[in-house]
């Protein structure tokens, strides 16, 4: 079944004719994603390798059913493009761009909330229901169908862990990249809620990092609501306070968002925390009694 994305999800690419947009559109198509339309202002009426291109999202939705959109749009213009998609009634929005101003991110989240749009990111690698539909930039070959749900704040580290799962024979149901920014749409709790309901998902791997309170909130939620096994891996144990580790959110400020605090919260929620990335499959074996 998977969550958020399904085999028949119809996807729009905003910024389809750009360098990034065109490259990843090909990758998504080759993964099997139903890319049904692209938007590129000034290029309405053209097509990109058979995919119709529109001047605006409003024009695209009058001709096609669009379930989700992904943005390959430079950060300064991302807010307008996101508003455009939300206003056109698109219900899932994947915000790839990094460096979107935080005030723009807040504005996008408020507008999305008022219209009932689910936002993934910004600064995410995307989301994939393995074998069915991939909306993002993750390498195709690691995302094979299976029963493990994965939710992560970071990209390559998530591929690393999914790569380890694949190597150990674990496929994935749905993998969600929350994004590395301070203000993002979907959070751990939202995704855990869906994965808990999803029949395909047998266990969940949560890839967190230092900074913020998303992991602590996830732990609270798991304690009260999640019956499936959850394995966590957290990056940033060795990071000194006050240094921002790449991601806008990955910083220990004023004694908050520490590795230790997060581990404690997870352990109190019965979540096993792996010390090393490659340990995750073994933890899963144990949890699933394999």
């Amino acid at each position: 079944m998977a969550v958020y994305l399904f085999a028949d999800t119809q996807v729009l690419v905003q910024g389809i004719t750009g360098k990034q947009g065109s490259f990843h559109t090909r990758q998504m198509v080759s993964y099997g994603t139903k890319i049904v339309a692209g938007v590129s202002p000034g290029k309405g009426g053209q097509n990109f390798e058979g995919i119709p291109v529109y001047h605006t999202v409003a024009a695209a939705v009058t001709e096609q059913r669009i379930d989700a959109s992904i943005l390959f749009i430079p950060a300064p213009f991302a807010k307008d493009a996101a508003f455009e998609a939300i206003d056109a009634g698109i219900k899932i929005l994947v915000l790839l761009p990094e460096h979107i101003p935080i005030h723009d991110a807040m504005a996008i989240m408020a507008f999305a909330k008022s219209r009932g749009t689910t936002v993934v990111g910004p600064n995410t690698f995307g989301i994939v229901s393995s074998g069915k539909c991939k909306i993002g930039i993750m390498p195709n070959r690691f995302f094979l169908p299976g029963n493990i749900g994965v939710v992560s704040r970071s990209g390559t580290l998530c591929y690393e862990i999914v790569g380890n799962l694949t190597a150990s024979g674990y496929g994935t149901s749905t993998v969600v990249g929350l994004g590395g920014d301070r203000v993002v749409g979907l959070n751990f709790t939202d995704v855990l809620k869906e994965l808990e309901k999803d029949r395909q998902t047998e266990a969940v791997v949560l890839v967190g990092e230092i900074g913020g309170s998303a992991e602590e909130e996830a732990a609270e939620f798991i304690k009260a609501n999640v019956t499936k096994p959850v394995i966590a891996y957290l990056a940033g144990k060795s990071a000194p306070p006050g240094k921002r580790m790449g991601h806008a959110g990955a910083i220990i400020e004023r004694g908050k968002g520490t590795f230790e605090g997060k581990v404690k919260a997870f352990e109190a929620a019965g979540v096993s925390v792996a010390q090393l990335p490659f340990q995750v499959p073994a933890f899963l074996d144990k949890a699933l009694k394999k």
Partner: protein
Amino acid sequence: MKLYEYMGKELLARYGIPVPEGGVAATPEEAAELTGKIGSVVIKAQILSGKRGKAGGIIFTDNHAEAGRFSADLLGSELNGYKVEAVLVEKKLQIERELYLAITVDSAARNPLILASAKGGIDIEDVPEEELVKMALDVTVGMQPFVTREVTRRLAVSDVVAAQIADILSKLYRLFVEMDAELAEINPLVISGETVIAADAKITIDDDALFRQSALPLVEERTAAEKKAHELGLSYVELDGDIAVMANGAGITMATLDLIQYYGGAAANFLDAGGGAGVEQTARALELLLSKNPRAILINIFGGITRCDDVAQAFVDVKKNSGIPVPVVIRLVGTNEEKGREILLAEGINAYKLMHEAAQRAVEIVKGN
């Protein structure tokens, strides 16, 4: 980007928020002259750090000669690890009461948050939770009168003070939005007679929005190497260890650092080369690492968009052009992995497949095993 106090106050004044009479001085003469003009003043070292009083960065005086001497001592010296390049000379306030007022971003709630306290002048972290006034702002409606009414009610101030705080909050929110601030903090907000004045200002501008805040002066907090990395589009943080690290992706770079620590080593830096870095950018990143004279280099590439052969080629290029005088441990998997491995093998390097094995080897090298 953090702003110096004097810059923050210039912004406050521009938005109509009362600040003390005063000016910024880059020389002892300017400081003395301002003191002569204003009379009874406070002189504050301009550094991007709090706790300046304890460190000797603040004096009160009404003597212009003393002002000059004090500033001469401070200017060019180091305070709390920061070089003092300017002092702020301001009229001394009659302080009846100090409050705290700030607008910041509540990441979890995804909206702006007003923080206020009837106790100001101390670190907001030291204010007990129950005395802290927190009020979420909906960006679609902004700072409405009902919001300021509730904030001033909870601060339990008099009507005349409440009206001024309501006005300051409205202006501060406009500044917060229009200047793309992540934090706009007034601490203390001073009640002096019937007047409310911002006695200090801490404003942080969102780095990602600097492209549209080009009127702001750039405040540089980074080291030379960090600055260079930024120009190269790399995410780079200097650390205290001796193993230089390069990886692609913030999370995996952090995890690489954690592994080094796990095996008993210490990383010299955090360097995220990003996804999709090509030969040229990777080469520049390597040169940056070498410039800090590490005892070993650990490269951890999980190729998604990044191509393993590009990274290998960059390594070979740098080695040929400038030489690499320290041991290098490389982990390569993902896109074009085989091609990358071949290039490295030709240079006598056998790339690792697993990141923890690579990290362990790097630590062993530094420890002399």
